[in-house]
Each structure stands twice: as C-alpha cells, then as structure tokens.
C-alpha cells in the first residue's frame, strides 16, 4: 500500500504516547522498505495506541493519525475511521479536562441531570455502570499520566466544579461498599467481597483461591466441561447460552491457536455487576479464565474492559501482574491474558464486534455464521464469556453441582441499591425486599428488567419468579440482571425518550434497519411526547417490527423492546 501522509511530524507528546504502546520507531534510512507484514501484524495495538494518545493529549490530531498510520502500515483513513467510532475519542482539539456526566436512566431519574440541564462544557454520557451510586460522572484529565476518575453520588455543584477545572479527588470508597450482602457466608460469586484487600494474593490463597485451578488441572478438559455442563451454567451476558456447549465447540476445533475473550464491556444501562465482581475479586476472574483456557485449549486470553471503568482497569492490571509474577500466567505457561480497554461503545460488548474492536477495526458486529467458536478473534476459534459467567467456574470445580446463583443489579427507588447475589427462584417482590424495600414515600410505578435491551413491567408483576423459564414464559428475560425500580417520581415518558436516544447513539450504523430505524423511532417518540398522536403508535410499531426482525445484531433487534413494553404494558402514551 502507498501511504500518503501530510508529512507534518507528530508532537513530542503524541510521539511519546504512541511509543508507549508501539515502542520506539525503528530507525531507517531512505532506502528501507517501509511497512510490510511485520508492521501490519500489530494492528491490534491500534486501540491501545489511540487510547494512549487520547489519554496524554486529550484528543487525536491529524498528525497523530498520520504517524500511527506509518507505524502500523495502515492508511490514515482507516485510523480515522476507527478513531471516530468511539465516544471517548475526539479528532478535534479540546481542553485536557473532559467531564462525562451520566444522563442515563437511573441517574437522570434519581438526582442527576438530563441533556437539557447539562453545563455546556460537559459531555452527556450513557450509563457509567454506577447506577447504585447514581448520579455519576467520569472526569478525565489528560496528561502524563492521565487521571481518570469515576465518581458516584454527585451533585450539581460537583459537576460545575469539575467543568470549571477544580481538582478532583479520587473517591476512597471500598469496593464492597455497595455490596450490601458483603461477608454473608452463603455467597459464592461475591464470597470475597469485603474480605480485605482484593489484591492480596496470599489472602486469596488462604481463602481457598487457586484450589479450583488445582482441581481443574487434575480434571483435564473433558471433566471440566462435564462439570460445567452438569451444573447447567448459562451465560450471564444476556443471551443465556449454555456455557459448556460453547466450550466443547471450541475445544474440538483443530485450528490453533484458540482465543478466550472475557467480555467486561458491561455497558447495558443499569448493569454494574461485572464491575462489582472485578473490583472485589479480580484474582478469581483470572483463575476462572485459566481454567476455561485449559478446558478449551486456548493459548491467548483477553479481557475487554469498557473504557469507563478506570478503577477496575487499575485493579486488573495489578492482578494480572501478580499472577504473572506468581508463575500462573505468561507465555511460558502457554496462556497469557491481555487487558484491552474500550473507548466508549456499547456495541463493542456484542460478541463479534468485540473481535473487531480488539483487532483494531471499527467495532461493527460481524456476519454470523460463521460463529465465534469456529471463526472468531483473528479468525481463530474463540470462546466469549461474560465476567459473571466466568466467576461461576471455580465453585463448580470445587463441587457445586448447580449453577443456580446469579447477580442482580438493583438501582432506583430501593433503600439499599447494589449488587445482590441470590438463588434463582425469588420473586421480584422478594428481591426488592432484599434491597430494603422501596424508599420511604415511594410507590412502585414500574421496574425495568434487563436494561435498555430488556423490558418494563408494572406493579402487577411483583410476583414474577426470576428464573430463565418463568421470565421467558412471560415474554421477558433476565438479561444482564438489571432491576431498576422506578417510583411515582419518575417521568416514564422521559425514560422512554432516553432509551430511544441511547439506541440512536449506540447503533454502529452498519445496517439500515438499525441505523435509520433508531433515528425514526426517536423522532416518533419525540412527537408522541409532545402530544402528537395521529397514526404515530402504528408507525412506531412498524419501525419496531422491522428493527427487531431485520437488523444484523442484538442491538437493533432489541432497540424497540423496552419502548414497546412501556407503551403496551405501562401505557405511557395512553392507548391512542
């Protein structure tokens, strides 16, 4: 390929950031052949490189794009295409301080702001995964090093102070603060929440850590998968796919190497369980991944972490280092884990978009078939599992025969919002009671189950049994475990408007039903909200049906579900 750049050198800062990831530029004279396979084989370093430049300089200039293009032997247009895909990147100059204020469902309804009352120099952000601490914001100070801080429980004054450049103190909360059950001996997935420093490897081992790994090594692949199969473990990322079946499919693929991707993109509005797990027990996630790698013959492990979780990034980076130092991970062990940080894109949690994002391409979902177990990351057989799914593995190795515990993310009008680990079979009312019941003075108006990709239910669904089967029979799904409790103070029309805006913002833009459908859906919602009724509900139904039936991926296919339920089940716009 003939690269054409503008010949404007990158600034020293940009160059330093790029070299942080790509290493020093190879010296060469005019007669060297440039680029070639060696350069291009590092394309997967594009996203980390863009993150490094954006961290250090605050935005990604044209000369930075040109320089990255030269280093990776990719065209500047391709780099630009990737850089403009992610919400946390900018290709226009901006100040070093960026304030991303959550304007999503929980925050806007419980003390936060909407797009309309956001200060001019703050960015509206989709759900930051801190709904139990709503309202929340993410403050990024680019520099060397950049400071990235996520803060919950904020006030309008704090937003104002952040946008006017005041110093931001990183919060000192303990990771177990929003795990109301912390310390309960019955906990399995959250068993180590509140038991001291989650990064103390000796404490981890003393507490039974690594015993599952020893057992798994003893078992070998077939027995590991048999145990997972017997436990009935279903994926917790939303689609509830049987984990053992996925593993067996990858294990039996002859093409090598195999890849293991842990999906920690957690961007479904209302979801914060994976963050809670990773903050409280990072070693258990790594141990689970090693077991999964043994079972499926994976040589390469990846954790794809959403860009809005700075504290988790620090925790995982340190945990991976510790595991490497302890000889549990690393090339010499035949399995290593790379942490990849996203940059603001809900769609990158989709199981094939995540591959494109890791590989350094735009995070657009791929066509299926072929399925990931056959043709996944770098075209190789790949396992993709959610964090919570993974965290089920150790206890199964140690004899738990039934995967019947799962996490729910309770937010909104409950007394003790947070992550709850429960045995499947509770009713919605019982779960809300566990969270201390409704707040004083609150009357239940609706519950959003499963997030923006889920559905609303009304107070008449309090007896709903929270199992896969019962929710499926009711036309619902547990999804990623979101239980957002909305009381009489919440403006449901405003929630519906936000959901429409969310999907319009987050559509990758690849297919027509979703790219245009989400825009048309939002336009109709805005008309309905302003009182225009004639024919609008039918039009909306037409749009929804096409998105659901003809979109490429789950984003477009679910972009109408919650809105439909708000109209049909809750009657937010009357009955026409």
């Amino acid at each position, binding site marked *: 390929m003939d690269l054409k750049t503008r010949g404007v050198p990158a600034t020293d800062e940009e160059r330093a950031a790029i070299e942080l990831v790509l290493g020093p530029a190879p010296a060469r004279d005019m007669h060297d052949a440039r680029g070639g396979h060696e350069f291009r084989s590092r394309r997967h370093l594009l996203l980390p490189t863009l993150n490094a430049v954006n961290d250090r300089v605050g935005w990604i200039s044209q000369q930075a794009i040109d320089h990255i293009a030269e280093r990776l032997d990719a065209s500047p*247009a391709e780099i*630009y295409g990737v850089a403009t*895909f992610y919400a946390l990147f900018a290709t226009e100059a901006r100040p070093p301080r960026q304030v991303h204020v959550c304007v999503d469902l929980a925050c806007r309804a419980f003390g936060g702001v909407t797009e309309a009352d956001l200060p001019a120099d703050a960015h509206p952000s989709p759900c930051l995964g801190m709904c139990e601490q709503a309202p929340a914001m993410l403050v990024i100070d680019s520099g060397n090093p950049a400071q990235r801080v996520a803060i919950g429980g904020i006030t309008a004054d704090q937003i104002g102070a952040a946008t006017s450049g005041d110093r931001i103190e990183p919060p000192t909360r303990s990771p177990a603060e929003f795990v109301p059950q912390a310390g309960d001996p019955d906990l399995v997935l959250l068993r180590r929440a509140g038991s001291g420093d989650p990064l103390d490897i000796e404490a981890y081992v003393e507490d039974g850590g690594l015993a599952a790994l020893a057992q798994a090594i003893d078992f070998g692949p077939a027995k590991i998968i048999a145990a997972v199969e017997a436990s009935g473990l279903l994926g917790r990322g939303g689609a509830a796919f049987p984990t053992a079946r996925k593993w067996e499919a990858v294990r039996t693929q002859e093409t090598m190497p195999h890849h293991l991707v842990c999906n920690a993109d957690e961007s479904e509005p209302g979801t914060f369980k994976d963050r809670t797990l990773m903050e409280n027990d990072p070693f258990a996630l790594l141990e689970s991944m090693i077991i999964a790698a043994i079972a499926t013959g994976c040589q390469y492990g990846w954790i794809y972490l959403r860009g809005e979780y700075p504290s988790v990034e620090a925790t995982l980076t340190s945990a991976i280092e510790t595991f490497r130092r302890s000889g549990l991970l690393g090339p010499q062990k035949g399995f290593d884990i790379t942490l990849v940080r996203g940059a603001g894109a809900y769609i990158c949690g989709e199981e094939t978009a995540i591959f494109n994002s890791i590989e350094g391409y735009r995070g657009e979902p791929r066509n299926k078939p072929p399925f990931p177990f056959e043709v996944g990351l770098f075209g190789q057989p790949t396992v993709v599992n959610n964090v919570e799914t993974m965290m089920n593995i150790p206890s199964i190795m140690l004899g738990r025969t039934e995967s019947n515990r799962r996490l729910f993310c309770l937010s909104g009008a409950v007394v003790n919002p947070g992550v709850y680990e429960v045995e499947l079979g509770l009713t919605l009312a019982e779960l809300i009671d566990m969270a201390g019941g409704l707040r004083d003075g609150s009357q239940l108006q609706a519950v959003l189950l499963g997030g923006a990709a889920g559905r609303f239910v009304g107070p008449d669904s309090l007896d709903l049994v929270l199992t896969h089967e019962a929710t499926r029979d009711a036309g619902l799904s547990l999804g990623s475990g979101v239980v957002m409790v909305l009381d009489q103070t919440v403006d449901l029309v405003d929630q519906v408007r936000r959901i429409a805006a969310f999907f319009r913002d987050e*559509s990758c833009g690849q297919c027509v039903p979703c*790219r245009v459908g*989400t*825009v*048309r859906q939002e336009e109709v919602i805005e008309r309905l909200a302003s009182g225009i009724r004639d024919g609008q509900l039918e*039009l909306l139904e037409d749009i929804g049906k096409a998105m659901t039936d*003809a979109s490429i991926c789950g984003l477009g296919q679910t972009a109408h579900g919650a809105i439909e339920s708000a109209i049909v089940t809750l009657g937010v716009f009357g009955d026409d």
Partner: protein
Amino acid sequence: MTEISLNIDGENVTAEEGTTILQACGGKSGDIPTLCYGDTITPKNACRLCMVEVEGSRTLVPACSRPVEPDMVVKTRSDRVDHARKMVLEFLGSSVDLSLTENVTEWNAEYGADPERYGDAAATVTQPVKVDNDLYVRDYSKCILCYQCVDACGEQWQNSFVIEIAGRGFESHVSTENDVALTDSACVYCGNCIQVCPTGALIPTSEYEMRAAGTWDEDAQETTNTICAFCGVGCGLTLHVQDNTIVKVTSPEDNAITHGNLCIKGRFGFTHVQDGRTIPPTADPEAHP
C-alpha cells in the same frame, strides 16, 4: 462441489454448497430485491432489503450472504419479509436521495413503501456535493452506506484504503482521513469506487456536469465494448457514447480477470479520442505512406 437440496417457496431445488440463498434463487438480483449487493464485492448485507424467511430462524436472514444449508426451507415472500423490505425502502427513501438508484420506484410500489410518511422533519443525510478533483464527484446525499466503494478501494480490489467509514450510527459516512480532499489523499483515481456505487453517489465529472446542464440522456446513449489501448494488460472497456461523444467509461464486471476494475487511464483517459477528432494538420501525406 457437493450439491445441496433445499426448499424455496415450496419448490425443491438444488444448489452447490457454498452458494448463497440469493444465488440459489437463480437471479443475480431478479426476484429478490437488493441494494447494497454488487456482483464483484463480498456481500456486506448492510441494507437488509434482501431479507427472506428461513424456517427455524428467529429473525429474517439476508439472502445475499447466507449460504444454503441442507434441507433449508426458505420463503422469499411473506408478510414479515414484505414488511422488512417496505421499511428498508422507507428508511432509505426518507433519509437518502435515491433519485439515481435503479428500481426504487417499482419496489416502492410493489412493497407499498411510502417514504413521505416520516414528514419533512425526518433526519436526512443531505449535504453539499464534494467536488474536489477534475475526474469524479462525490454526492454523499445519495449514499446508502453499502460499503462497496470502501471495499473496492481497500482490500478487495484497489488496496489503496483511501476512503473508509467514519463516525458511528446515523453519523456514519464515507470519508478520507479527517475529511481531506481527494487530492490530498492517496487516491489514484482508478474510479473503481465509481464502478461499484449503486446509487450514483459517485459519478464521473463528465456525467455530473451533463446532468447539471440537463444534457445527460441515457436513452440516447449507446455502449460499445472494447479493449483499453493504453498498456498491454488489455482491460475491457465499455464506452458510453452520446451524440457521437464518449461521455463515460465503465468496465464489464463479468470479465474474469479485471472484474470491472480499471486504472485512471482506462477510466478517465478518453478525452483524447474526441479532442483529436479534428484532423491534425499534417505535412505532405505522401511523405508518410
């Protein structure tokens, strides 16, 4: 090649393994309407106009790219299929200028699509035409984001990677790096992007100017296939001639070697043919037998 038997619209048919439902249906794009599909580019199935029903599938599937499977049961028309097609036509028709896209009027009638029903306030991709070089014009108000130009410029044909999709969602658009002019990009003006563009978003300047002047008249044009004389490769050319003047050059896509691709000379280097038509002054013709 293994033959696979499947059922399409109640009829048992056979197709070679690895072919798509669209191919198994026989027509290139006859019975099943397609927009983003092109004969020379790997299907991207982005427009979702070709959706069909496959028994056992939760959602509709794209005929252009879904390979046939043994005992597949396919319905190419049904209420679900027709609804999806109607909505895709409406979504595109209400946001993109499809005036140069073939078949749209007929399809709108067939599927009952009414792009007007979204009202005047409906968001569109309307934007100024990009005229930044002498050879071709980019009018992205007409772009349906079929990805074909990107793939033709990139890894599937030209390997130049000059244009890419930038932005996300409804803001997605075809762009050079930082939207620089083509003259500042690595474009080699092969025009292979023009060749694959199904919507007239990319057209040669010659066509653009004649359309603007109201003199472009396809009915009055004849096409002649010939061989490019610039070099020894021998690419196929199709000359589009109006009023005895070449107004555009394309290349036959069914050519097994070039698949419709050309270089700048073959695609744009045609003006000398007519510039030279006034007989150049020569010396004594007898002197040059």
